[in-house]
């Protein structure tokens, strides 16, 4: 499997998500369509997971090096979180936000295709590579879902504040995301010591990782301080923007010219 197959797979996944969501809407009247609608949505995600696995084999390294590669994982994992939340807590709306976000990230990859490149620079050849990046990826996925839930809460919560489940959903997603963010940060520091000689050098990516960690640390203390609920939702909804800067934006900042965290092909 190479990148030549990516547009077809990405399109198929997006069609599955859209068709499944549409079918789910129709199944409100015709309950017979309910099971197939879920089947189609999940198929969209499985297709992408299959592509990642095959691409991993073809690359002979984990496809976690470039931003485009991390977006692939993100697009596969975030709808999975949406489905799991519905399965576990019976909250249906989150998956639509998740699928929309995943489609958005797939579209970025379609618009800016990666180059097939097996090379994994020596600095990345470490046992820390997979745990550090995967922990961060899952953290970002959970915090994106938390942000989506917070936006939903803001708009529905302003109308009626009766739905407490929505509030606790965004809270627990953020809490889990923060735990993984912390692990990712510390793993990164331990790895940096092995690869670059020091655990913290205020490299732009490190600085932004610290800022985003502080942002969510701030959220947990707002909760501990029993600040207003809608304020907390706004805070969660907007905190994700800081994460996005840390993830993609850093590369475009003037401070990132000499960053050691740039693994994009020239």
């Amino acid at each position, binding site marked *: 499997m*190479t990148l030549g197959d990516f547009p077809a797979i990405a399109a198929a996944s997006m069609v599955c998500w859209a068709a499944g969501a549409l079918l789910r809407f129709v199944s409100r009247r015709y309950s017979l369509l309910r099971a197939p609608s879920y089947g189609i949505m999940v198929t969209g995600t499985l297709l992408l997971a299959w592509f990642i696995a095959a691409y991993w084999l*073809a690359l002979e390294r984990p496809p976690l090096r470039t931003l485009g590669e991390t977006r692939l994982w993100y697009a596969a994992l975030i709808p999975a979180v949406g489905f799991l939340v519905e399965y576990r807590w019976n909250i249906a709306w989150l998956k639509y936000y998740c699928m929309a976000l995943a489609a958005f990230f797939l579209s970025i990859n379609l618009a800016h295709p990666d*180059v*097939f490149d*097996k*090379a*994994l*620079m*020596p*600095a990345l*050849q*470490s046992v820390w590579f997979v745990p550090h990046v995967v922990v961060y990826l899952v953290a970002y996925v959970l915090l994106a879902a938390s942000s989506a839930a917070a936006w939903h809460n803001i708009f529905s919560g302003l109308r009626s504040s009766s739905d407490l*489940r929505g509030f*606790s959903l965004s809270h*627990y997603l953020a*809490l*889990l995301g923060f*735990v993984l963010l*912390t*692990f990712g940060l*510390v793993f990164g*520091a*331990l790895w940096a*010591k*092995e*690869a*670059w*000689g*020091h*655990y*913290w050098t*205020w490299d*732009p990516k490190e*600085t*932004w990782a*610290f*800022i985003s960690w*502080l*942002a969510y*640390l*701030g959220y947990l*203390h*707002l909760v*501990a*301080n*029993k*600040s207003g609920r809608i304020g907390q939702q706004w805070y969660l909804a907007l905190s994700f923007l800081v994460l996005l800067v840390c993830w993609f934006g*850093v590369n475009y*900042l*003037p*401070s990132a*010219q*000499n960053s050691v965290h740039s693994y994009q092909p020239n």
Partner: protein
Amino acid sequence: MKEWFGDFRSFRVPSMVAVLVVMVGFAIEYISGRGVPMLFWPANAFFVGGFALLLVVAGIAFRNHSLVAWFGSIPLGLCLIFSLALLSLLGGVIPQDGLAGGVLAGRFGLNRIFSGWPFFLVVLLFLCNLGLSVVWKTFPFRFSNLQFMLFHGGFWIALACGLAGATDLQRVIVPVYEGRQNSRAYLPQENRMVQLPFSVYLEDFSIEEYSPQIVLYDPQNDRVISGQTGSVPEVGKGYRVSWQGISATVMDYLPHALPDRNGTPRAVSSAQGIPYAKIRIAAGENRFEAWLNTGSPFVRPGVVRLGRFYLVMFPGSPKAFRSGVVLSGRSGKRSAMLEVNKPVAYEGWKLYQMGYDENAGKWSQLSLIEAVRDPWLPVVYCGFFMIMAGNAMFFWKGMKQREMT
């Protein structure tokens, strides 16, 4: 006193104090014209120890005093978290090289935020706040507070010791040539050489490379154009790459070869040879075969001219580079292999494979080895492991609470 502070959950006073501290920091930075003068060992250790003791005494003895209670309150903590985030934001946007942003930025220390006064004062106040909260949760000890103690205490230790110990961190570069020994190292920040307590002898330096790439080079615009590849993803027999109107197919590939007397490439050992590829080229009506090679200091690169373009083969990026060294010091001689991500510890130092002569590439005789000594590392790592333990407990507690909702 209490009335003046108002409600302990209110942000009014804490936010004013945080803004004031940042402004005072910038004022000191502007007036003094330089960052915080740092303490060296053992003064920094006394400072951190004394500071911790002060917090423990203040936290226990004056627990009910409203000023101490305010210093350890969540709203102040939150305002300081935001101040730290905002100062880091400046440090994350402005290049931190001590030069960016012109004279005024330099005067306010914006291009060296993390060693400047505003950051120092905010961190100091933050450590007061964090430290007091840890003291209150630790005395009297309750098992239910363990997660809080580990996470917050670990953060306090990592932050305080990481910053205070930064002055004792030594990072030097040891340049060493193959077959030679060196015990002098370069100190980049101070641009001078220093004597090491041990010496490094370089037996062998070697590089492994990924497969080369075949690309079109446009000399007029100094531009490299990558082509569309077929089903074989990397250069080897059967590899095909095409551009508009031009295609190249690899008929034969020798990863390590040198030309014989007649100029025909022959396979040799990997240490000597360079990649050669026999390619069939189709450019418009033209069809012909030619050898490409990546070139080396001893062999001219084999390229093919196609109109205003050149078909060239670039060497692959480095896959691994390593130095076989012999270290000699007070503890005797020791052989070691240095590789990226695989440092070697020796007599309190850690040695890292850092770089090589990139212009010579695979033929580099020079290896750059970084030697690092960080006496504070065990304490900072202790903080990291406490954070991780507290974090794991936080995860567990969060999951359990979730089951209840």
